[in-house]
Protein backbone atom coordinates (compact mmCIF):
# COMPACT_ATOMS: atom_id res chain seq x y z
CA UNK A 1 0.00 0.00 0.00
CA UNK A 2 1.36 3.44 -0.90
CA UNK A 3 0.94 6.26 1.56
CA UNK A 4 1.87 9.92 1.51
CA UNK A 5 2.48 11.84 4.72
CA UNK A 6 2.32 15.63 4.77
CA UNK A 7 4.08 17.23 7.75
CA UNK A 8 3.43 20.92 8.32
CA UNK A 9 4.61 23.48 10.85
CA UNK A 10 1.68 24.06 13.18
CA UNK A 11 -0.26 27.31 12.85
CA UNK A 12 1.28 29.96 15.05
CA UNK A 13 4.76 28.39 14.89
CA UNK A 14 7.11 30.86 13.22
CA UNK A 15 8.26 29.35 9.91
CA UNK A 16 11.31 31.30 8.69
CA UNK A 17 11.66 29.01 5.65
CA UNK A 18 8.11 29.86 4.62
CA UNK A 19 8.81 33.56 5.12
CA UNK A 20 11.93 33.35 2.96
CA UNK A 21 10.04 31.50 0.23
CA UNK A 22 7.15 33.98 0.39
CA UNK A 23 9.56 36.89 0.18
CA UNK A 24 11.39 35.35 -2.81
CA UNK A 25 8.07 34.81 -4.60
CA UNK A 26 7.22 38.45 -3.89
CA UNK A 27 10.49 39.51 -5.53
CA UNK A 28 9.44 37.53 -8.62
CA UNK A 29 6.26 39.57 -8.82
CA UNK A 30 3.86 37.01 -7.34
CA UNK A 31 1.43 38.28 -4.77
CA UNK A 32 1.80 35.84 -1.89
CA UNK A 33 0.05 36.52 1.39
CA UNK A 34 1.51 33.60 3.27
CA UNK A 35 3.87 30.71 2.60
CA UNK A 36 4.61 27.78 4.89
CA UNK A 37 7.14 25.03 4.19
CA UNK A 38 6.56 21.45 5.35
CA UNK A 39 7.71 18.07 4.11
CA UNK A 40 6.37 15.12 2.17
CA UNK A 41 7.20 11.53 3.07
CA UNK A 42 6.18 8.81 0.59
CA UNK A 43 5.96 5.31 2.01
CA UNK A 44 5.15 1.82 0.85
CA UNK A 45 3.81 -0.32 3.67
CA UNK A 46 2.53 -3.86 4.08
CA UNK A 47 -1.15 -3.79 5.05
CA UNK A 48 -4.29 -5.81 4.33
CA UNK A 49 -6.41 -2.78 3.49
CA UNK A 50 -6.37 1.00 3.33
CA UNK A 51 -7.72 1.48 6.87
CA UNK A 52 -5.02 -0.75 8.34
CA UNK A 53 -2.36 1.03 6.31
CA UNK A 54 -3.59 4.42 7.49
CA UNK A 55 -3.63 3.33 11.13
CA UNK A 56 -0.09 2.00 10.81
CA UNK A 57 1.25 5.18 9.15
CA UNK A 58 -0.46 7.32 11.79
CA UNK A 59 1.44 5.42 14.46
CA UNK A 60 4.65 6.14 12.53
CA UNK A 61 3.75 9.84 12.56
CA UNK A 62 3.13 9.84 16.29
CA UNK A 63 6.39 8.08 17.07
CA UNK A 64 8.84 9.50 14.55
CA UNK A 65 7.69 11.32 11.44
CA UNK A 66 6.21 14.40 13.15
CA UNK A 67 6.96 16.19 16.40
CA UNK A 68 3.47 16.90 17.76
CA UNK A 69 4.69 19.98 19.65
CA UNK A 70 5.60 21.85 16.47
CA UNK A 71 4.14 19.90 13.55
CA UNK A 72 0.80 18.59 12.32
CA UNK A 73 0.50 15.68 9.89
CA UNK A 74 -1.91 14.28 7.36
CA UNK A 75 -1.86 10.72 6.03
CA UNK A 76 -3.20 9.90 2.62
CA UNK A 77 -3.41 6.36 1.29
CA UNK A 78 -2.73 6.76 -2.40
CA UNK A 79 -3.15 3.21 -3.68
CA UNK A 80 -1.83 -0.29 -3.97
CA UNK A 81 1.88 -0.92 -4.38
CA UNK A 82 2.88 -2.05 -7.83
CA UNK A 83 3.13 -5.86 -7.78
Amino acid at each position, binding site marked *: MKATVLVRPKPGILD*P*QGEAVGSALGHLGFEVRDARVGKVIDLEVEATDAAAAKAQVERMCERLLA*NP*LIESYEVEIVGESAA
Partner: protein
Amino acid sequence: MASPQPRIGVVTYPGSQDDRDALWALAALDAEAVAVWHDERELPDLDAVVVPGGFSYGDYLRCGAIARFSPATAAVCEFAAAGGLVLGICNGFQILCEAGLLPGALVRNESLRFVCRDVRLTVERDDLPFTGRCSAGQQLVLPVKHGDGRYLPPPDLDPAQVVLRYVDNPNGSVDDIAGLSSEAGNVMGLMPHPEHAVDPLLGSDDGALLLASLVDAARDRVLAAI
Protein backbone atom coordinates in the same frame (compact mmCIF):
# COMPACT_ATOMS: atom_id res chain seq x y z
CA MET B 1 42.03 10.36 51.36
CA ALA B 2 42.28 11.39 47.72
CA SER B 3 38.94 12.50 46.36
CA PRO B 4 37.49 9.87 44.04
CA GLN B 5 37.42 10.42 40.30
CA PRO B 6 33.83 10.24 39.05
CA ARG B 7 33.16 8.27 35.88
CA ILE B 8 31.39 10.36 33.25
CA GLY B 9 30.26 8.78 29.98
CA VAL B 10 30.12 10.54 26.62
CA VAL B 11 27.87 8.96 24.00
CA THR B 12 29.17 8.78 20.42
CA TYR B 13 26.56 8.44 17.68
CA PRO B 14 27.40 8.15 14.00
CA GLY B 15 27.78 11.85 13.14
CA SER B 16 28.73 13.06 16.63
CA GLN B 17 31.48 15.66 16.40
CA ASP B 18 32.11 17.03 19.85
CA ASP B 19 32.42 13.75 21.72
CA ARG B 20 36.23 13.89 21.76
CA ASP B 21 36.29 17.47 23.00
CA ALA B 22 33.83 16.50 25.73
CA LEU B 23 35.98 13.49 26.74
CA TRP B 24 39.09 15.68 26.74
CA ALA B 25 37.45 18.47 28.75
CA LEU B 26 36.05 16.09 31.37
CA ALA B 27 39.44 14.40 31.77
CA ALA B 28 41.10 17.83 32.09
CA LEU B 29 38.61 18.61 34.86
CA ASP B 30 39.62 15.47 36.73
CA ALA B 31 36.86 13.07 35.79
CA GLU B 32 37.39 9.63 34.33
CA ALA B 33 35.90 10.16 30.88
CA VAL B 34 34.35 7.03 29.38
CA ALA B 35 33.39 6.70 25.71
CA VAL B 36 29.99 5.06 25.13
CA TRP B 37 29.12 3.76 21.66
CA HIS B 38 25.62 4.39 20.32
CA ASP B 39 24.63 0.75 20.00
CA GLU B 40 25.37 -0.12 23.63
CA ARG B 41 22.11 -1.18 25.23
CA GLU B 42 23.49 -0.87 28.75
CA LEU B 43 25.66 1.90 30.07
CA PRO B 44 28.84 0.99 31.93
CA ASP B 45 28.98 1.96 35.60
CA LEU B 46 28.76 5.78 35.39
CA ASP B 47 28.19 8.74 37.70
CA ALA B 48 26.98 11.06 34.91
CA VAL B 49 26.46 11.08 31.14
CA VAL B 50 27.11 13.74 28.52
CA VAL B 51 25.23 13.60 25.20
CA PRO B 52 27.48 15.62 22.89
CA GLY B 53 27.05 17.85 19.86
CA GLY B 54 27.27 17.01 16.19
CA PHE B 55 24.84 15.74 13.58
CA SER B 56 23.76 12.34 14.89
CA TYR B 57 22.59 10.01 12.10
CA GLY B 58 22.88 12.98 9.73
CA ASP B 59 20.12 14.77 11.67
CA TYR B 60 17.73 13.56 8.98
CA LEU B 61 14.00 14.24 9.44
CA ARG B 62 14.55 16.48 12.49
CA CYS B 63 17.66 17.10 14.59
CA GLY B 64 17.94 14.28 17.11
CA ALA B 65 14.85 12.47 15.82
CA ILE B 66 16.71 9.30 14.81
CA ALA B 67 19.26 9.32 17.65
CA ARG B 68 16.37 9.39 20.07
CA PHE B 69 15.69 5.71 19.19
CA SER B 70 19.26 4.44 19.43
CA PRO B 71 20.03 1.79 22.08
CA ALA B 72 22.38 4.12 23.99
CA THR B 73 19.68 6.82 24.17
CA ALA B 74 17.26 4.28 25.68
CA ALA B 75 19.96 3.47 28.25
CA VAL B 76 20.48 7.19 28.95
CA CYS B 77 16.72 7.60 29.47
CA GLU B 78 16.73 4.77 32.02
CA PHE B 79 19.77 6.31 33.73
CA ALA B 80 17.96 9.69 33.93
CA ALA B 81 14.74 8.09 35.17
CA ALA B 82 16.75 6.60 38.05
CA GLY B 83 17.96 10.10 38.95
CA GLY B 84 21.25 9.98 37.02
CA LEU B 85 22.91 13.21 35.91
CA VAL B 86 22.60 13.83 32.16
CA LEU B 87 23.92 16.84 30.24
CA GLY B 88 23.00 17.34 26.57
CA ILE B 89 25.05 19.81 24.56
CA CYS B 90 23.78 21.22 21.23
CA ASN B 91 22.76 18.11 19.24
CA GLY B 92 22.66 16.37 22.63
CA PHE B 93 20.12 18.95 23.80
CA GLN B 94 18.07 18.30 20.65
CA ILE B 95 18.23 14.54 21.29
CA LEU B 96 17.11 14.95 24.93
CA CYS B 97 14.14 17.06 23.76
CA GLU B 98 13.18 14.49 21.12
CA ALA B 99 13.53 11.74 23.74
CA GLY B 100 11.21 13.60 26.11
CA LEU B 101 13.83 13.98 28.87
CA LEU B 102 13.50 17.74 28.41
CA PRO B 103 10.37 19.63 27.32
CA GLY B 104 10.05 21.60 24.10
CA ALA B 105 11.76 21.48 20.71
CA LEU B 106 14.69 23.06 18.88
CA VAL B 107 13.92 24.31 15.38
CA ARG B 108 15.59 26.19 12.53
CA ASN B 109 17.24 29.47 13.53
CA GLU B 110 14.99 32.45 12.88
CA SER B 111 17.67 33.92 10.58
CA LEU B 112 17.92 30.64 8.62
CA ARG B 113 21.68 31.06 9.04
CA PHE B 114 24.09 28.74 10.76
CA VAL B 115 25.54 30.76 13.66
CA CYS B 116 29.10 30.14 14.79
CA ARG B 117 30.39 32.64 17.32
CA ASP B 118 30.88 33.35 21.00
CA VAL B 119 27.73 34.40 22.86
CA ARG B 120 27.18 35.94 26.26
CA LEU B 121 24.84 34.09 28.62
CA THR B 122 23.25 34.87 31.94
CA VAL B 123 23.10 32.15 34.58
CA GLU B 124 19.56 31.90 35.97
CA ARG B 125 20.05 28.94 38.31
CA ASP B 126 23.10 28.23 40.45
CA ASP B 127 21.55 25.47 42.54
CA LEU B 128 21.71 22.66 40.00
CA PRO B 129 24.31 19.88 39.61
CA PHE B 130 25.42 21.66 36.41
CA THR B 131 25.85 25.15 37.84
CA GLY B 132 27.25 24.71 41.34
CA ARG B 133 30.37 26.71 40.49
CA CYS B 134 28.33 29.57 38.99
CA SER B 135 26.29 32.26 40.68
CA ALA B 136 22.86 33.47 39.59
CA GLY B 137 23.14 36.58 37.44
CA GLN B 138 26.72 35.74 36.42
CA GLN B 139 27.55 36.15 32.75
CA LEU B 140 29.41 33.45 30.81
CA VAL B 141 30.95 33.54 27.34
CA LEU B 142 30.58 30.30 25.37
CA PRO B 143 30.65 29.47 21.66
CA VAL B 144 27.54 28.43 19.75
CA LYS B 145 27.58 26.66 16.37
CA HIS B 146 24.21 25.52 15.13
CA GLY B 147 21.57 25.92 12.45
CA ASP B 148 18.68 24.60 14.53
CA GLY B 149 18.94 26.21 17.93
CA ARG B 150 15.75 28.18 18.29
CA TYR B 151 14.13 26.80 21.42
CA LEU B 152 10.35 26.52 21.49
CA PRO B 153 9.00 25.75 24.96
CA PRO B 154 5.77 23.87 25.58
CA PRO B 155 2.93 26.18 26.73
CA ASP B 156 3.24 24.94 30.31
CA LEU B 157 7.01 25.31 30.79
CA ASP B 158 7.88 26.22 34.38
CA PRO B 159 10.14 29.30 34.09
CA ALA B 160 12.18 27.91 36.98
CA GLN B 161 13.52 25.29 34.55
CA VAL B 162 15.41 27.93 32.58
CA VAL B 163 19.10 27.68 33.51
CA LEU B 164 20.79 29.92 30.92
CA ARG B 165 19.54 32.81 28.79
CA TYR B 166 21.22 34.56 25.86
CA VAL B 167 22.14 38.18 26.47
CA ASP B 168 22.12 38.72 22.69
CA ASN B 169 19.84 36.03 21.25
CA PRO B 170 21.60 34.43 18.22
CA ASN B 171 18.79 32.19 16.96
CA GLY B 172 15.37 33.55 17.94
CA SER B 173 14.90 31.26 20.95
CA VAL B 174 11.69 32.03 22.83
CA ASP B 175 12.41 34.06 25.99
CA ASP B 176 16.14 33.96 25.08
CA ILE B 177 16.35 30.41 26.45
CA ALA B 178 19.81 28.90 25.90
CA GLY B 179 19.70 26.07 28.44
CA LEU B 180 17.15 24.40 30.64
CA SER B 181 16.76 21.60 33.13
CA SER B 182 14.23 18.88 33.72
CA GLU B 183 11.67 19.40 36.47
CA ALA B 184 13.64 17.11 38.77
CA GLY B 185 16.85 19.02 37.96
CA ASN B 186 19.04 16.00 37.09
CA VAL B 187 18.90 16.54 33.31
CA MET B 188 20.09 19.67 31.54
CA GLY B 189 20.41 20.69 27.91
CA LEU B 190 22.06 23.73 26.36
CA MET B 191 22.89 24.90 22.85
CA PRO B 192 26.24 26.61 23.65
CA HIS B 193 29.35 24.44 23.95
CA PRO B 194 31.05 24.39 27.35
CA GLU B 195 33.42 21.62 26.16
CA HIS B 196 34.95 24.03 23.63
CA ALA B 197 35.67 26.62 26.32
CA VAL B 198 37.70 25.02 29.08
CA ASP B 199 41.01 26.78 28.51
CA PRO B 200 41.79 30.49 28.06
CA LEU B 201 43.76 29.53 24.94
CA LEU B 202 40.43 28.60 23.34
CA GLY B 203 39.02 32.09 23.90
CA SER B 204 37.14 31.36 27.12
CA ASP B 205 37.32 28.96 30.01
CA ASP B 206 33.79 29.68 31.23
CA GLY B 207 32.71 26.26 29.98
CA ALA B 208 34.87 24.74 32.70
CA LEU B 209 32.55 26.28 35.31
CA LEU B 210 29.61 24.23 33.98
CA LEU B 211 31.53 21.02 33.34
CA ALA B 212 33.46 21.21 36.63
CA SER B 213 30.11 21.71 38.39
CA LEU B 214 28.98 18.45 36.80
CA VAL B 215 32.23 16.72 37.86
CA ASP B 216 31.72 18.05 41.43
CA ALA B 217 28.13 16.79 41.53
CA ALA B 218 29.14 13.40 40.11
CA ARG B 219 31.96 13.15 42.68
CA ASP B 220 29.51 14.00 45.49
CA ARG B 221 27.38 11.08 44.33
CA VAL B 222 30.39 8.75 44.46
CA LEU B 223 31.21 9.95 47.99
CA ALA B 224 27.58 9.59 49.09
CA ALA B 225 27.62 5.97 47.87
CA ILE B 226 30.79 5.04 49.82
